[in-house]
C-alpha cells in the first residue's frame, strides 16, 4: 500500500512538473512586467527593472536578485515564467519557484534559458541588494554590505543605511553604520544644515575615509572673467604663471571661453608652413631662411595676411589678454556654506595629521637611529676605545647576518633559530675578530693608515668569499611570527614590531656596553690598556690579551647587530659596505671614545636622514647625499665630535 502511494506521488511529480508554479504570485507578476528588460540584459537599460525589484517591497525580491546575480535564474522559453534552478548534471535542472522557494522538480534544461548578467549588471544588482543585506540577520552579511558601501557609495545607500540603523543589535556594526551614515550624509544629505552638521561631527578625525569624503566637496573649476564676480561660491583668485595655473593653461581657458584668439603650437605652425610651401617659398619668404623661430613667426603672419591660415595671437597679445582678465576658482562640489564648513574641518584635520606625521617620522627616525647605533656600537669599541680602524667591520655585520641565515636553514622554527643565532653569531664574529687581531692588526698598532688598508683588503676578500659561497642574490632572514605586523596607534602613526625589537636591542647593547666597560674586570683592564699600555703592563695586565679580547668583543657585537639588521633588511654580501661609512660617521660625529657620543651621533644621523627624506620623500639617495655633506660640514665645526674627550683620555 505504502509503496503504491509512493509510486503514485513519484508519477505525479514527474508527470506534471511545471503545474506547481504559481504564475500569479506578485513577484512573478513583477518579473513578467519587466520581462523584456531582464531578458535583454543590457547594462544601459536594466536600471528600471532593478529599481522596480528593489523598491517593490516584496520579501522575495532579495532572493530574485541574489539568484540573478549568481546566474541561477532561468526563464521558461514557452511560458516566459522565471524560476531559479540548480544544475543537477549537464542536461537536467532542479527548478524552484520564486514565490515560496518550493522545489518544483527536475526537468531537462531544453525548455529553459539561463540569464547571464554581465559584470556591469551584476554590479548594479549588488548595489541594489545592499539594502536587503544591511538588515540581514547574519552579521557577516551586514559587514560585507558595509564593505560594499565603503568601496562605492551611492545616494540610494543613504536611505537604506538610515532605515537599517534602528534594527541593528551588534554594537560594533552599529558604530560602523553610524559613521558611514554621517559620511554619506556629507555627500548626499538633503539639506545643507544636515551636511554641515555631519561635517562638523568629524572635526579632528584622522580617518582617510573622512578626508576622502570631504575633498570632493572642495572641487573647484577655474574660470576667467573681466572683473571678479561677487558670488558667494568664488574661491581663490589665481594669477597666471603661478603654480596652480600655468600661463599656457590660463590662456587656453580664455580661448575655450571665446575670450581670446587661439595660439598656435610650434608643431602646428611648422606643419602650416610646410603645407604652404610653393616653389621653395612660404608667402614670398625663402624656406632656407626659416631657421629661427622669429623668421617662422614672420612667415606665418605673412600667410595669415594672405588669408591662407587663421590669424593667431602673438605673445604680446597673449600677455595683454591675460592681464585684462581675472582668474578665480568657483566651487562646484557643493553649496558655499558646505564648502566652507568642509574647508574648516579639513584644515583642522590637516593640522592634526601634520602633528601625527611628525610623531610618526620621529618614530621612524628613532628606529633608523637604533639601526645605526647597532651598526656602530661594535665600532665604538674597536675604533672608539682601542683606536683601531677596522674597515672590515661591515663584513663582520654581514657574517653575523649570514650566520643567522645558515642557522635558519637547519632550525626551521624561527623563534628558536633566532635564539640560537644570536650567541652563535657572536661566537663566529668573536672568533673572526680575534683571528684578525692576532694575524694582522697586532702588527700594525700605531700605524693607522696601514691598518685601514690591510682591513680594507680583508673586507674585499670577505665580501667576495661571501659572494662565492652564498651567491649574489639576497638571502632572507625571517623574523619570528610574533614580530610580524606593527603597533598601530592611529591611521597615521604606526611602527612595526621588528623596529621596536631593534630599538630594544639597541638599548640592551648600550646597557651591556656600559656594564662591561664600567663594572667588570675586563672593562677596567681595557680602559687601563687604552690609556697607558706600559703602565697597565707594569700593573700585571697583559695588554696583548686585553687588546685581543676587546677587539673580539667589538667584533662579536657587530655579529649580533648583523642578525638584527638582517631581520630588518635583506642579507647580501654587500650589506656591510652599506653601513660602514655611516657607522664611522656615527662614531666620528658622536665623538671618538665615548659611548654616549655614539648614541647621540646615531640619533643625530637617524633624525637628520629622516628629516631630509621628509623634505624630499621620493628620494632616499638624495637624503643620504645631503646627510653625508652635512656631516662633512659638521666635522668642520666640531672636529672632535659632539662629545669630545678631555684631559688624559683624549691623548691616549
Amino acid at each position, binding site marked *: 500500500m505504502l509503496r503504491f502511494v509512493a509510486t503514485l506521488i513519484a508519477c505525479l511529480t514527474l508527470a506534471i512538473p511545471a503545474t506547481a508554479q504559481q504564475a500569479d504570485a506578485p513577484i512573478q507578476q513583477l518579473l513578467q512586467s519587466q520581462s523584456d528588460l531582464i531578458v535583454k540584459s543590457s547594462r544601459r537599460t536594466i536600471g528600471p527593472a532593478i529599481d522596480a525589484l528593489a523598491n517593490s517591497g516584496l520579501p522575495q525580491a532579495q532572493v530574485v536578485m541574489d539568484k540573478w546575480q549568481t546566474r541561477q535564474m532561468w526563464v521558461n522559453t514557452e511560458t516566459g515564467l522565471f524560476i531559479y534552478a540548480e544544475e543537477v548534471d549537464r542536461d537536467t535542472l532542479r527548478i524552484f519557484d520564486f514565490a515560496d522557494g518550493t522545489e518544483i522538480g527536475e526537468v531537462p534544461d531544453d525548455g529553459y534559458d539561463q540569464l547571464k548578467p554581465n559584470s556591469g549588471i551584476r554590479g548594479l544588482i549588488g548595489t541594489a541588494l545592499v539594502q536587503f543585506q544591511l538588515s540581514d540577520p547574519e552579521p557577516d552579511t551586514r559587514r560585507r554590505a558595509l564593505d560594499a558601501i565603503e568601496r562605492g557609495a551611492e545616494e540610494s545607500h543613504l536611505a537604506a543605511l538610515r532605515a537599517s540603523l534602528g534594527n541593528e543589535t551588534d554594537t560594533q556594526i552599529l558604530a560602523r553604520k553610524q559613521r558611514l551614515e554621517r559620511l554619506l550624509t556629507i555627500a548626499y544629505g538633503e539639506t545643507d544644515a544636515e551636511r554641515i552638521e555631519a561635517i562638523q561631527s568629524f572635526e579632528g578625525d584622522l580617518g582617510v575615509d573622512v578626508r576622502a569624503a570631504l575633498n570632493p566637496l572642495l572641487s573647484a573649476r577655474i574660470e576667467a572673467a573681466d572683473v571678479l564676480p561677487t558670488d558667494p561660491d568664488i574661491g581663490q583668485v589665481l594669477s597666471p604663471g603661478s603654480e596652480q595655473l600655468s600661463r599656457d593653461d590660463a590662456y587656453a581657458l580664455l580661448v575655450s571661453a571665446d575670450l581670446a584668439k587661439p595660439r598656435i603650437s610650434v608643431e602646428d605652425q611648422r606643419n602650416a608652413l*610646410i603645407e604652404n610651401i610653393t616653389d621653395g617659398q612660404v608667402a614670398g619668404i625663402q624656406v632656407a631662411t626659416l631657421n629661427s623661430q622669429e623668421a617662422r613667426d614672420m612667415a606665418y603672419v605673412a600667410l595669415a595676411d594672405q588669408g591662407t591660415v587663421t590669424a593667431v595671437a602673438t605673445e604680446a597679445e597673449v600677455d595683454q589678454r591675460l592681464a585684462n582678465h581675472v582668474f578665480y576658482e568657483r566651487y562646484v562640489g557643493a553649496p558655499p556654506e558646505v564648502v566652507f564648513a568642509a574647508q574648516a574641518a579639513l584644515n583642522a584635520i590637516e593640522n592634526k595629521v601634520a602633528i601625527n606625521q611628525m610623531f610618526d617620522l620621529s618614530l621612524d627616525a628613532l628606529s633608523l637611529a637604533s639601526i645605526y647605533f647597532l651598526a656602530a656600537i661594535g665600532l665604538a669599541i674597536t675604533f672608539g676605545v682601542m683606536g683601531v680602524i677596522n674597515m672590515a667591520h661591515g663584513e663582520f655585520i654581514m657574517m653575523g647576518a649570514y650566520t643567522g641565515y645558515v642557522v635558519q636553514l637547519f632550525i626551521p622554527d624561527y623563534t628558536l633559530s633566532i635564539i640560537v643565532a644570536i650567541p652563535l653569531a657572536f661566537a663566529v664574529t668573536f672568533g673572526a675578530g680575534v683571528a684578525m687581531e692576532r694575524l694582522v692588526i697586532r702588527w700594525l698598532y700605531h700605524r693607522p693608515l696601514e691598518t685601514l688598508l690591510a682591513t680594507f683588503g680583508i673586507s674585499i676578500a670577505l665580501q667576495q668569499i661571501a659572494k662565492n659561497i652564498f651567491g649574489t642574490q639576497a638571502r632572507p632572514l625571517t623574523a619570528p611570527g610574533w614580530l610580524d605586523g606593527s603597533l598601530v596607534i592611529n591611521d597615521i602613526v604606526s611602527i612595526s614590531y621588528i623596529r621596536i625589537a631593534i630599538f630594544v636591542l639597541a638599548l640592551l647593547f648600550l646597557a651591556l656596553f656600559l656594564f662591561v666597560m664600567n663594572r667588570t674586570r675586563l672593562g677596567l683592564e681595557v680602559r687601563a690598556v687604552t690609556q697607558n699600555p706600559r703602565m697597565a703592563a707594569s700593573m700585571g695586565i697583559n695588554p696583548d690579551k686585553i687588546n685581543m679580547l676587546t677587539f673580539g668583543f667589538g667584533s662579536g657585537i657587530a655579529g649580533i647587530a648583523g642578525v638584527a639588521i638582517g631581520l630588518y633588511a635583506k642579507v647580501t654580501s654587500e650589506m656591510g659596505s652599506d653601513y660602514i661609512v655611516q657607522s664611522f660617521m656615527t662614531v666620528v660625529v658622536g665623538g671618538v671614545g665615548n659611548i654616549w657620543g655614539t648614541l647621540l651621533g646615531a640619533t643625530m644621523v637617524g633624525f637628520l636622514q629622516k628629516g631630509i627624506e621628509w623634505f624630499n620623500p621620493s628620494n632616499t639617495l638624495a637624503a643620504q647625499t645631503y646627510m653625508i655633506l652635512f656631516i662633512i660640514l659638521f666635522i668642520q665645526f666640531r672636529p672632535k665630535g659632539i662629545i669630545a674627550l678631555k684631559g688624559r683620555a683624549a691623548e691616549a
Partner: protein
Amino acid sequence: MTDAALPRRQPFALRFPSVMIFLAILALFTVGVTVLSEGFGMGVISTSFIKTLGKTLCLCLVALAMDLVWGYCGILSLGHMAFFGLGGYAIGMWLMYARTEIIVLESLSAAALPPTPQEVSDGIATQIFGVVGSSEFPPIWAFAYSLPLQLAAVVLVPGVLALIFGWLAFRSRVTGVYLSILTQAMTLALSLHLFQNDSGLRGNNGLSGLQNLPGLGETPQSIVSLWFFWASALALALGYLLCAWIVSGKFGSVIRAIRDDEARVRFLGYPVEAFKLVIFTLTAVIAGIAGALYYPQAGIVNPAEIAPIASIYLAVWVAIGGRGRLYGAVIGAAFVSLVSTWFTGGQAPDINLGFYTISWVDWWTVLLGLSFVGVTLFAPKGIGGLVDVLIDRKSPNRHGADLGPDHGALREQEADK
C-alpha cells in the same frame, strides 16, 4: 733633500736617473705597441688590447697622483678616483652632446623646413635624456656644446672640488684616518648623487658611446685607439716629469716632512695647510685629466666608477707598487690592473682541487684582498722594493725607532732616504 746643499747642482737627469730610465722605457713601449698594432703596423696587438693598454696608462697617471698625495704627502685620499670620474664626466658630456648633435642635425635636415636652434636642442635633449624620462637639458649641461669649455671643466671641476673640500678639511686639522674616512664619505656622497636620475647626468645609465669621436665617423677605431694610446702615453710622461720635478725640489722636501712629522714642520714656520692644499688640488687635477683620457677609451662612464671602492683599489695599486717612489705607483697600477684584467677576463686557468674548482673570476678578488694584506704586513715597500734590492740600496738605520711622535705614515724601515 741633502743634494740642495751641495755647492754645484748636478743636472736633473743625473740626480734622478729613474726619471730618464722611466721615460726611455715608456717611449720604447709606445713605439713598440704602435708598430705591432692593427692600426698602423703588423696587427699583432688587437685594437681592444690597445685600448686596454691605453686605459692602463691613464690608470698609471692617476696612480702617480695618488702616490704624490699619499706616498709623499701622507694624505690617504679615498677620493681621487672620484676626481678621475669627474674628469671623465666632463669630457663625456661634450662627446655625447657633439655626437648626438650630428645625429639630430642629420635627421632634421630631411625635414621640409630648416630646423630652428630650439628644435635642434630639443632633439638632442630627447636623445640624451630619454632614458631617464626627461627631454630638457639640465643646467649643468650649459657648456656641453663647447669643447674648450668642457676641457676647462676637466681641470676645473675636480680642481675646485678638491680645493673646497681640502680647504675645509685641512683648515679644521682633520688628519690621518679621519681624513681618509672624510674623503671616502665625500666620494660616497658624490656617487650617490650621480646615481639619481635627476642629477642631470643620466643617473645610473651614465654617459655612453664615448668611444665614437664626433666628426670622425669614417676613422676606424683601430686608428682612434692609437691616438688615445699616444695621448695617454704623452700625458703619463708629462705627469711623471711634473711629479718628479715637484718632489725633487724644496717643495718636495717640505711635503715629505709633512708626511713624517706635520707638527714639527708647522713649528718650523711652514704653512702646512697650504702645502697640503696645493698637493691635494694638483693631484685632483691630474686625476681629472687622466679620467678625461680614460673614459673615451672605456666608452662609458657611470656612477659605479666613482664609488668609494674604486678609490680604495687605487690605494691598493700604489701600495702594491710601492709608495713614496713614482715608478712604484706606475708599476703597481700597470701590474695589478693588467693582472686583474687577465684574471677577471676568464683567461686564467681554473684550478681543480678535486672537491672544488677555483674559478679565478670568482676568487681573484679574494686573492687581491689577501695579497694586499700580505704586502702591507710583509713588504711595505711593495714591488718597487725589489729595485732597492737590485741596486743594493740601504735604508738608514734608526734602530727601529718611529719616524715621528705622531707615528706618521711610514716607519723608518719603509722610508727611502
